[in-house]
């Protein structure tokens, strides 16, 4: 009985105990924020890549290079997407697609460029639903005729 009373009154090691309790919580929070930031970065990369690819196609659409989606045009689009993403192998890891053809609204010519980049968080998918393993996709659709 006395020993129990002493245990209640004794504060030795309390910091260690509290640290042990809060450290996992902080870690989960910090890693979650890191994953969130990394996710945003991937989304920005995909968006920048799609925009750059579309811009390349637009600027070359009046030349034989990209009048239609030739292999030269596609290579140029992918190069532009790699450059814009800051990752020289962006289109190797991601699914970079492009099309030049009739628009969905019937207009003669549209350019559609999509970057679909895989994202894997540090934490398990079960921890945060907003930072789970997924593909971040960005698509630019524009009409040039």
């Amino acid at each position: 009985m006395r020993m129990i009373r002493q245990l209640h009154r004794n504060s030795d090691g309390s910091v260690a105990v509290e640290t042990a309790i809060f450290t996992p919580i902080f870690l989960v929070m910090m890693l979650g924020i890191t994953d969130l930031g990394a996710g945003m970065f991937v989304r920005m990369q995909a968006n920048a890549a799609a925009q750059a690819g579309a811009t390349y196609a637009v600027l070359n659409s009046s030349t034989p290079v990209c009048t239609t989606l030739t292999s030269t045009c596609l290579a140029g689009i992918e190069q532009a997407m790699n450059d814009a993403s800051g990752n020289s192998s962006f289109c190797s890891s991601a699914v970079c697609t492009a099309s030049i053809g009739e628009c969905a609204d019937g207009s003669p010519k549209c350019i559609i460029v999509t970057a679909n980049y895989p994202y894997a968080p540090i934490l398990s998918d079960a921890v945060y639903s907003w930072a789970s393993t997924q593909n971040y996709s960005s698509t630019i659709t524009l009409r040039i005729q």
Partner: protein
Amino acid sequence: MISQFKNCFWKCSAGAVAAMTALVLPVLLGFTSLGVEVGHWYLGLRQMQGAADAAAISAAAQYIADYPTNPSSLTYQTVGVNYAATNGYTIPTANVCLVSASGSDNCGTVRSLDSRPIICSTGPCVVVEITQNTATWLSTQLSLEPGTTGRIVQAIPKPTLTARAIVRAVSQTVSTTKQGTDCILALANDAAAVLVHGNGDLQANCGVAIDGGLDQNASGTAVGGMTFNGSPSAVHISNLVVSSSSTNCPGAHCFLYNPATSKLPAANVFTNTATPDPYASQVAVLFATAPPAGVQTGGVAIKTAGSGYTGSGTCTFTVTGGTYYTTSGSPAKFTAKISGGKVTNPLTVTDPGAYTTFPTSPVSATSSCAGSGATFTLTQGCFTWNGTAIAGRKYCSINLNGAGTTNFPAGSYWIAGGDSGCVGFCVSSNNATVTSEAAGVTFFLTNGDGTNSLGTNSYAHVAITSGTISLCAPGTSSGTTCTTTNFGSGCTATTSTSCLLFVQNPAATTSTADGNPSSTNNTFDGNGTRTLSGLIYLPKQTFAEAGNGPIQGCVGIIAKYVDIGGTPLFSNGCLPGNGIGGTTTTVTSWGSPFLYQ
């Protein structure tokens, strides 16, 4: 108990970490949220800019498509809104606006949303503005963000994010060429600008245009038309374009070229329509430069006899000095008699030469008989036709009045004023055969300037009354020779004389009526076959065709009056450029969009 709690509250350190954590955690979470939120803004801005760019380019494409037919169309706004939505953002119509080429715009709403200046130094520019209110975003809805004013903590601001795209439509000029379908153009403002009489049958696998009063004489009432004189007279043509308000076709004399038995339908007759002379500027350039200067017949006199000339016969002398007339120029040559080593008597000018700057006296000449020192005085003027054609020379006339074949080497032949035997280009023998080389010839009909010609007021014209003629202009022969069977079906204009066969100086004496005065009548008569390929250009005079022999070949006519008494056959095939009646329409439009901001 209470006292014990008070003492412990101030003295005990138990639970300090929990307490501190409770105090600091909201602050940490606040800053963390701010960091996340700012990152979210930049991601949003990035996506908004991409959508704005795509919407602006799409709207510009619609504006470019609309501009030629409906430049004030606002459909571009709808397209801009639709493509902003396709790329993930809903915007009102007023967020898509236009800065026109004149600088005016409908961008009031865009300016009210975004104070940045709209940079469009050269319109037209399509502007798309996308805005997002961050107050509705997820993290700003968390508890850390005060919902009402008056709270102390303002953890996360709520800016309105704006993205703007300006796309400039690049100016471009598009020329549309409509090939002319006419091969005969009469320029007189006269109801009888084209006169078909007797048994005349104007057969043309092309159209006939008569422009008097509109393009040529804008101040007068347009009366240019076609007149028939004699019941057999007829035209078989593809269409008729006249400047007057009425014409004799359709009518009893007017038939289609093919099928020849069909009446010319009213749909193939066009009134009140101008047909400009498409060759006026091209020909004006040709006559802006004086013809080549050459030595006139008998125009060599001995100034000093020289010495050392061998032989006692005839030597050939080649003139030195002077500046040759373009690339076709070459020196004058003449023959002279030699006696005692000296030049005693100039005989004959064999080549008048072609000069821009005529050699000044005393003129030296190299001789085929050695010797030196002889000098001569040369007289400039047209060269009298001697039966041998030399391209690039200025003749007084080309008078083919005898039997035999005359072949013209390819090149240009200037005929200046005519002479007593022929005022221009004459073929008057039934047994004469006239041909030209495949590379083609051009005859320049201009006024005289030397003592051998009829003078500066006399303009050369064409007087063909018989003979068998086969002439082609540069660019009109498809074979190695220029004969009937080798005339091509088209003409490529690559040089200043391409496709031009007979070209008369536009300053020539004017026909005041059909064939009047007679010196302005250019006759292509006779019973022989006249196969001509190229354009006959007589803008101030009369083209007259008669006789039983046809004119055939790819020939076009531009003349003030056209007089038909025989059965000529024309086609449009050899006319260069737009042909007659063709037009080139230049339209300034807006081309590929250029991403500006």
